[in-house]
């Protein structure tokens, strides 16, 4: 039997909704693990990505760590996929893009209603925030886009089965949604 495909996944500035949707393929996961195994992913807790066939990126790029992770994925994955609205256009986190970052942080951590011990978090362990939330294709080149917030399990399944079978992935209209 030929070696299994390797799939890596990560959530950058996302809510893990796309990963929940991936798990939502339910018993088809068993079919998937027949032909593929997971490399770096919240599902395996592997910390760094090795050479992979497919990388699924959830979420846009909102901080310095996201940039590092995304580049690691691009370097290691033959096919890189923007999975979900946030990876494609920044999504809900990008609502902050038209607001000055300091204004945002001040509202959230200093002036906001009910804030106790007001201070902007500044621990050296925290990755630095970027001025704006970026779609991932502004940082690395992306091979495929899977829209949806999240893309449905059927959308993810159709895409993966196309790709794994060596077909050009195509999504019929009922699987294309931006919400």
């Amino acid at each position, binding site marked *: 039997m030929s070696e299994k495909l390797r799939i890596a996944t990560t959530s950058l500035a996302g809510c893990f909704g796309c990963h929940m949707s991936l798990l939502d393929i339910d018993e088809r996961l068993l079919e998937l693990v027949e032909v593929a195994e997971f490399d770096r992913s919240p599902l395996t807790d592997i910390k760094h990505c090795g050479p992979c066939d497919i990388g699924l990126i959830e979420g846009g790029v909102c901080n310095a760590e996201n940039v590092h992770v995304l580049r690691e994925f691009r370097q290691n994955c033959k096919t890189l996929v*923007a999975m979900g*609205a946030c990876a*494609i*256009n*920044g*999504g*809900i986190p*990008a*609502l902050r*893009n*038209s*607001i000055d970052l300091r204004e945002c942080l001040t509202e959230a951590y200093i002036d906001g209603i009910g804030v106790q011990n007001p201070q902007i978090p500044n621990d050296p362990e925290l990755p630095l925030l970027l001025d*704006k939330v970026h*779609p991932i*294709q*502004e940082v690395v080149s*992306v091979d*495929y*886009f*899977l*829209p949806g*917030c999240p893309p449905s399990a059927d959308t993810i399944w159709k895409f993966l089965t196309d790709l794994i079978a060596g077909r050009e992935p195509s*999504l019929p*209209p*009922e699987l*294309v*949604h*931006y*919400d």
Partner: protein
Amino acid sequence: MKTITIDGRSIPFEEGQTIMDAALAADVYIPHLCHNPEFTPHGSCKLCNVKVNGRTCSACTMLAAEGQDVINNSKELNDARRAITQMLFVEGNHICPGCEKSGNCQLQALGYHFNMLDAHFPYFYPRREVDASHPDVLLDRDRCILCELCVRASRDVDHKNVFDIAGRGINAHLIVNSATGKLADSVLEVDDKAVEVCPVGAILVKHHGYEVPIGQRLYDHHDIAEISLMTEGGGSDE
């Protein structure tokens, strides 16, 4: 009966009809966004670009004339229309998952129609003013595509002239006719045609968000071509 051909099909027209009018009457869908058959054509969104005897024209403003050979549903035109739709997405702030119009929005439905999976161009993330001053109507300019349907409706149907476009090019923006520039101080009322006509989520009626569940919204299971011909086509009541 005078006729034109659209994609090889013979389509009858009456004097004074545009190519769009003739097409809709014959249940031929030409994609459009700033056009609404109830109003004077505006010709600004360019989604209805067709080739007429080899030259590109807007179907909503071009009068039908004997001898016209119109190409509508070609790969070249649909590629250009997809690119225009993508430009509309990056020029504003369209975060569909957080928009009340989602599922009922014509811009989004056109994205689906053209199988647009990403916006291709870099996002502008412009800073646009939200006007929440009116008790019953919200104006979120983040999603305004400058189609001027509200301008036309307010002027021609409501006879109130509440809206207009100011500024040029990328600085063009919707303005409100009131002393403060705020909607609350204008004569706009929630039942005005100008409120109903917005094809996107820029003008929204307050207190009525997310009433139709996902799966039952206008474009959840129907392509915009189908809905357009049902509501604007020859077989519709209009």
